[in-house]
């Protein structure tokens, strides 16, 4: 997949349409649910997107969190089905194991839209805005490749930090996206591949890797597959006094990553972030529209490309930070 | 007729030889007393017979069949039934369930509850025990538990009945009930082995007497042909039995005054005083409220009304910390659960109450601690190879000495002894009495509760009689005989 930015639904036009559908009179009250799967900043913002869209479109919205528990996801969907609500906007836990319960719900007449995680072959979905995890890895990977070629003379020892124990599919796709970009560089070597997705965990694991590799030529690049890993990796490099020797590339962007990219310690080079609020907003919007009869193409999900934030384009970083600050209020 | 015969049984524990090559035989239709001082190995031999432990060497036979047991279940199946020295009922279950534990009557795959209760009721009636089979054991008092233990052991209609100090927590009339049961069993040709430290009762119930000393078999005698003195000689070699020395005096000043102390349903309107150097006894039947009274005064349990005046000062809201600091000490009746910390080493147990004394500020002074420990081990003649061993590895009597030692280390001004001689041998008892007297000479007052009335007469200056939670009388030991005292306690007016 190529970073085809054009595929993204323009947010402005979406909210413009809102006004017209809001005005539609004499309609029975619609209740929808917005489900996310984890308690982190990304999901929190996505949830806010759900709520904002529902508010703007004048429908009642219930939100919940499946907490990375596949059974809890099924339970929540069951509960919503038994409440006979009109539709569910969901960030599914897994592209396969989340299918069953959602399909059953759709058979019971609920509209389903998905955000963040693309489902495998789901013709019942009324629409969605999902990330292509491969692409998220790839976008950072391209920047890393450029960096290695320009700044490191094409030679690098790379460590990666994943979140496989937490979300194996997403993590692996991002990993592949990143690694594939470095494949044709003959002097790049992946020297370590470990799991650490929480900040504190990542600080320790990356710290260990840095000292342990000192004797073998050090680590030039650390790439982290998610939010916690990225922050932890940066802190580890900083704490080990390796700023300027080891450079971090990451995935996911939030306030702290923005500050790190803007920091003059020159550790974090680039992250690929997303706009979870917008993903949530759009996912909810497409759901409500389908419920109101404005059906789109079933089974089609729009891929939302990542937003590359790097030291070479501080203006973009600032723009991202401004939007983020507004949403986190 | 059947015979239980032990052959060269040896049991080694690290640092101790609990049984040393013991060979002895017990015939059916007789009650075999089994005695020896604390730590002589009686309980250990019983546990070998009951399958609770395996001997290090040797074996035993029942009717010439060699018995090897890998668990207590097999012993029960072979007809060997045991009442252990330490109570062993399950508090969360009913009396009936405890009696038939492991062999509840079934209806198909399901327990026949009706039959269980009927059977339990029947055996309770047979043995003349007035406790409902549906009661939870947790709600029973200590002596009721003891009765249930015996009922439980009897309920298997055993060939061999091992009783390890069954009377240590029974009062006289209950003991009498038990003896009645035992005599009945004797007629049924059962081998009965009976361990007790209450030598007096042996002539009443036993036919033969087997003596162990330091894990070795000393001899087996016919009860009727043996005198008290002979038995004691066998147990200890030579010891002298002391009586209360004459030099003990009682001061004039009251040390402790108790006024109208009440606790609803347990005791009421308790008023008495203890004077300087006085050894005050409290006699009474089991369940008369003595333990609760001592614990309430000591602040370990609450009371509803009344006052405690110590050296002229009223003590309000007592609690153990306060009372200990004021100079009180209490050796509880249940040493296993209330007196000792089983997993702690002996030295730790000797210094729990006296932590404030061995410490300077927050810190424990090791040399002071060592001094305190050494003093008690020496003075109380505690038999322990190494004070770093857990206290649980000591015999009952030595454990009791550790409890007393723990409190002597606080230099108390008034000591409460609750059943200080329960389950300890004559020699150790004498030592404990000696300690009480020594304390008196040093100006310490004591209150001693005991179910062995002759002990109270031997030890105390004055005896209060408690019945159903009330003080019903006061006597001087020199004025009464054991029989008088017993009658007063029973209160058959």
């Amino acid at each position, binding site marked *: 997949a190529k970073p085809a930015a054009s595929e993204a639904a323009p947010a402005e036009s979406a909210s413009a349409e809102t006004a017209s559908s809001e005005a539609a009179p004499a309609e029975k009250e619609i209740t929808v649910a917005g489900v996310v799967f984890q308690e982190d900043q990304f999901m929190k913002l996505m949830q806010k997107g759900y709520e904002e869209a529902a508010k703007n479109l004048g429908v009642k919205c219930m939100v919940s969190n499946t907490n*990375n528990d596949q059974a809890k996801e099924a339970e929540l969907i069951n509960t919503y089905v038994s409440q006979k609500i009109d539709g569910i906007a969901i960030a599914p836990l897994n592209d396969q*194991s989340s299918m069953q319960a959602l399909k059953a719900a759709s058979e019971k007449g609920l509209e389903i839209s998905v955000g963040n995680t693309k489902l495998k072959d789901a013709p019942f979905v009324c629409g969605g805005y999902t990330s292509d995890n491969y692409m998220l890895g790839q976008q950072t990977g391209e920047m890393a490749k450029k960096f290695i070629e320009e700044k490191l003379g094409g030679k690098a020892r790379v460590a990666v930090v994943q979140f496989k124990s937490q979300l194996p*599919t997403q993590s692996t796709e991002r990993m592949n996206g990143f690694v594939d970009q470095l494949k044709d560089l003959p002097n790049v070597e992946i020297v370590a591949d470990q799991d650490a997705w929480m900040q504190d965990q990542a600080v320790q694991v990356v710290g260990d890797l840095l000292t342990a590799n000192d004797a073998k030529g050090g680590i030039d690049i650390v790439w982290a597959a998610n939010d916690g890993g990225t922050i932890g990796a940066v802190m580890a490099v900083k704490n080990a006094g390796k700023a300027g020797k080891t450079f971090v590339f990451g995935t996911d962007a939030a306030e702290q990553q923005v500050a790190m990219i803007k920091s003059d310690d020159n550790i974090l080079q680039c992250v690929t972030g997303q706009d979870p609020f917008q993903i949530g907003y759009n996912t909810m919007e497409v759901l409500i529209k389908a419920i109101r009869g404005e059906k789109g193409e079933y089974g089609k999900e729009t891929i939302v490309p990542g937003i590359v934030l790097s030291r070479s384009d501080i203006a973009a970083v600032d723009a991202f930070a401004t939007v983020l600050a507004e949403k986190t209020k | 007729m059947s015979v239980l015969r032990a052959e060269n049984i040896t049991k080694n524990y690290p640092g101790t030889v609990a049984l040393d090559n013991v060979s002895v035989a017990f015939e059916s239709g007789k009650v075999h007393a089994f005695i020896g001082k604390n730590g002589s190995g009686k309980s250990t031999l019983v546990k070998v017979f009951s399958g609770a432990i395996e001997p290090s060497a040797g074996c035993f036979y029942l009717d010439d069949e060699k018995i090897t047991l890998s668990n207590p279940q097999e012993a029960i199946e072979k007809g060997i039934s045991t009442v252990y020295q330490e109570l062993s009922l399950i508090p969360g279950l009913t009396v009936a369930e405890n009696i038939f534990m492991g062999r509840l009557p079934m209806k198909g795959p399901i327990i026949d509850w009706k039959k269980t209760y009927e059977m339990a009721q029947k055996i309770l009636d047979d043995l003349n025990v007035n406790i409902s089979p549906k009661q939870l054991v947790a709600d029973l008092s200590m002596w009721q538990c003891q009765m249930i233990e015996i009922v439980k052991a009897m309920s298997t209609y055993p060939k061999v009945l091992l009783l390890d100090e069954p009377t240590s927590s029974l009062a006289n009339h209950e003991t009498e009930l038990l003896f009645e049961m035992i005599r009945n069993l004797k007629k049924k040709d059962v081998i009965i082995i009976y361990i007790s430290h209450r030598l007096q009762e042996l002539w009443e119930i036993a036919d033969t007497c087997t003596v162990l000393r330091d894990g070795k078999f000393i001899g087996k005698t016919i009860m009727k042909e043996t005198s008290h003195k002979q038995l004691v000689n066998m147990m200890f070699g030579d010891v002298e039995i002391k009586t209360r020395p004459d030099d003990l005096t009682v001061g004039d000043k009251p040390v402790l005054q108790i006024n109208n102390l009440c606790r609803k349903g347990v005791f009421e309107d308790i008023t008495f005083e203890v004077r300087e150097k006085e050894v005050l006894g409290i006699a009474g039947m089991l369940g008369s409220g003595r333990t609760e009274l001592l614990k309430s005064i000591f602040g370990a349990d609450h009371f509803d009304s009344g006052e405690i005046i110590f050296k002229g000062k009223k003590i309000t809201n007592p609690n153990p910390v306060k009372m200990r600091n004021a100079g009180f000490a209490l050796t509880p009746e249940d040493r296993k659960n209330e007196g000792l910390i089983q997993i702690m080493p002996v030295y730790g147990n000797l210094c729990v109450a006296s932590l404030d004394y061995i410490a300077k500020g927050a810190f424990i002074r090791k040399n002071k601690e060592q001094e305190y420990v050494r003093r008690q081990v020496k003075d109380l003649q505690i038999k322990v190879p190494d004070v770093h061993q857990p206290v649980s590895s000591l015999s009952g009597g030595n454990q009791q000495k550790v409890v007393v030692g723990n409190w002597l280390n606080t230099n108390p001004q008034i000591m409460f002894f609750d059943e200080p001689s329960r389950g300890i041998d004559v020699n150790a008892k004498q030592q404990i009495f000696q300690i009480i007297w020594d304390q008196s000479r040093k100006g310490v007052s004591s209150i001693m509760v005991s179910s062995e009335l002759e002990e109270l007469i031997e030890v105390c200056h004055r005896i209060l009689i408690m019945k159903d939670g009330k003080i019903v009388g006061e006597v001087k030991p020199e004025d009464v005989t054991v029989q008088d005292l017993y009658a007063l306690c029973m209160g058959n007016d």
Partner: protein
Amino acid sequence: MKTASFNFQKFLKTYVMEIVLVIISICIAFSAPGFLTAANLLNILRNTSLKGVIAFGMTMVIICGEIDLSISSTVAMSGIITALVSGKLASAGIMPMEYGVILGVLLAMIVAALVGTFNGWVRTKFNIPTFIITLAMMNVLYGLSAILSKGFPVTTLPAWFSVLGAGQIAGIPVPAIILIIVFALIHIVMQYTKFGRSVYAAGGNPESARLSGVNVKRVKIVVMIAVQVLAALGGIMCSSQVMSGAHNFGKGWEMDVIASVIIGGASMNGGIGKVRGTFVGLIFLGVLMNGMTLLNINEYIQYVVRGGLILAAVLVNTLQSVHKK
């Protein structure tokens, strides 16, 4: 009248948790209209059932004075084994998935039973607390599950398999039926069989039980097996609900399971507890979660409420039993 008031008191004591449950339910029913519908109540029962079957096993374990933290990994492992066996047999052409999955279920149960045997054996042989044995086992099984599934969900399950977790019989969800059956079974075992009473004895005072001829070791091993097999059942039902097995299923369930047992009045010290109580505890937690979802309560507040109510429930239980004495 004296007798009447006495009976009322006794009723209050015996059914205190039930009464609290009813009060909470009434409160929720007033604020959330969708709560008191047959569909929703059945839904609560269904949602409760996966953890529920495990909780009944855990009740035995806790009464026996032990604990099992490894059930969460067993949940994951059994789903994976079921799906893998059914998939492999089909792809090897030995047996279509429709039948193969049954062998998968059996194998999952057998493996769980072996895990339980191991836990129990280590407990009784070396006298190591089950808390730590099963904590270690939780890690081991989690890793093994992930290795088995290579970290990805295994979805090779036949369509009919979804009956176990999502089917209905006469309008009643199948998992709810399974829950009731397991409840009845374990209730009977604990109240009316020798084994059940031995569990109480072994938990109440192991040494006394041993001296009374109860084979305490065997009892402990058997309950450790039972909870594992029931965890496998829960895991299989979970896999059936989502038609796949993955190594991160069941994570954190042990805490909910233990919480419902304790809310139900069992004592962590062993010897005390009732299967019926656990049922109430389960429904209690189920109603709470469902109610909060319906009332759309903020998820963070949900944690606070949940924690507060667990504490309150245990408090009520304790005060009531102190009162009893």
